[in-house]
């Protein structure tokens, strides 16, 4: 079954259509269905995959999407986002530490829609040049100021564009109840966004929430 464009659910397992047939990214399985090559997508390895399995209603990333991906790490999830966005889409992958970047660069070299950026998501000016046409933001940085980081990056979105945000409760405050932490972060987001969905990612990712939100109106940069 095609759950979303380029995202398939077969026997309770998720797959995306491989943008680069024959090439694996993280030791996943490849599968052939109706002349398409599919790559398996593990909920334990990817928060977006787990959010979809937990019932995400709408996926703002579609073929042709121009995605700004903050906290791309070695590109596990980003590669599936790149599959979904497809040839006409684009994924700008921002990562600030050099070690995962070393793996992300060769991945981007193989994927025609992927741009690696070694930069800090707190300083969107550093990568503005690559983001002129961005219309979705995906963020998974596991940082204490995660809501603020997203707000700093809303300048790339127009009214009605959406953002997906993974919130890790532990990294903000190790003692406070995860529920409270999520609520606090969500209330910060309300400044620029309307919250469309919130999901918990249990049992795939402990103390993680996933938020889909929609930009309210144009912000001044």
């Amino acid at each position, binding site marked *: 079954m095609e759950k979303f464009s380029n995202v398939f659910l077969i026997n309770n397992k998720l797959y995306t259509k491989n943008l680069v047939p024959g090439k694996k990214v993280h030791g996943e399985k490849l599968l052939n269905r109706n002349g398409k090559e599919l790559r398996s997508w593990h909920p334990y390895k990817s928060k977006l995959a787990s959010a979809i399995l937990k019932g995400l209603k709408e996926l703002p990333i579609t073929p042709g999407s121009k995605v700004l991906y903050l906290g791309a790490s070695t590109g596990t999830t980003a590669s599936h986002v790149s599959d979904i966005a497809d040839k006409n889409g684009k994924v*700008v992958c921002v990562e600030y530490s050099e070690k995962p*970047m070393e793996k992300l660069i060769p991945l*981007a*070299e193989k994927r*025609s829609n992927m*741009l690696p950026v070694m930069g800090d998501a707190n300083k969107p000016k550093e990568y503005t040049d690559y983001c002129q046409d961005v219309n979705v933001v995906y963020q998974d940085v596991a940082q204490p100021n995660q809501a603020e980081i997203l707000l700093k990056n809303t300048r790339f979105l127009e009214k009605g564009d959406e953002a997906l945000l993974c919130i890790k409760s532990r990294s903000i405050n190790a003692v406070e109840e995860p529920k409270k932490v999520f609520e606090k972060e969500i209330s910060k987001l309300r400044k620029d966004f309307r919250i469309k969905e919130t999901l918990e990612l249990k049992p795939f990712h402990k103390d993680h929430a996933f938020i889909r939100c929609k930009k309210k109106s144009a912000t001044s940069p």
Partner: protein
Amino acid sequence: MKDRKKAIEEARKKVKEAKTERDQLIIHSIKAVEEMDEVFNLFYERVENWHSLHFPELPEIVKNPETYLHIINELLTRPEMKEEKLKQHTPKAKKIEKESKKSMGAELDEKDLKQIKRLAKLAIDVKNERNEIEEYIKDVTKEVTPNLRALAGPILTARLLSLAGSLEKMAKMPASTIQVLGAEKALFAHLKKNVPPPKHGVIFNHPEVRKSSEDNRGKVSRSLANKLAIAARLDYFGDKHKGKEMKKEFQEKLKKIRG
């Protein structure tokens, strides 16, 4: 997408920059280790001379500086040096106790000896801290210079970087220069006077060079230096982890040299 090429190039450059900054961490660390070794030796010599007023026979029996310092730190005075307590430090416990009873050293009181204990304690601490930094070097070289590390081991890698000044400089050096890094004095003598050029600098510390016969040492050094030059470039350009492969090649070369 024309932006993409630019992005990839920029990201590569930044990774490289980030790494070359980290090479300076290795260089400071190895310099600190060398300085701490000097400090340790100074302190050890002072403790040995000082305490020998009281027990001059001890350094003759316990030759290992660290063991010696631990004994001074824990069992300062001759009357305290009983076999039972010494046993955990050295197999020569019995002998020490015996010698302590008929020592020619002066009788010093607790107050006098305590000052020596202070210094012994400090020397032990310096050694421990030095070892911590060495562990750190083992770790960072794995991350920053995996190819050099595979060939030369973490400590020699750090010494080479320190002598070269940076990973960038080392990556740009011809193998012949790497071969004599650390032998500047001998090289200078060769140029000034009429003595043969040095066969090796700090790479003499590599086990394969060290264990080579006098006749082969020059060839082994040259072949190691060739590999190190390639490894430094690979590390600098952050491309591939070919360390294992290169080590194998080096070992095959060794077989040929040694026949």
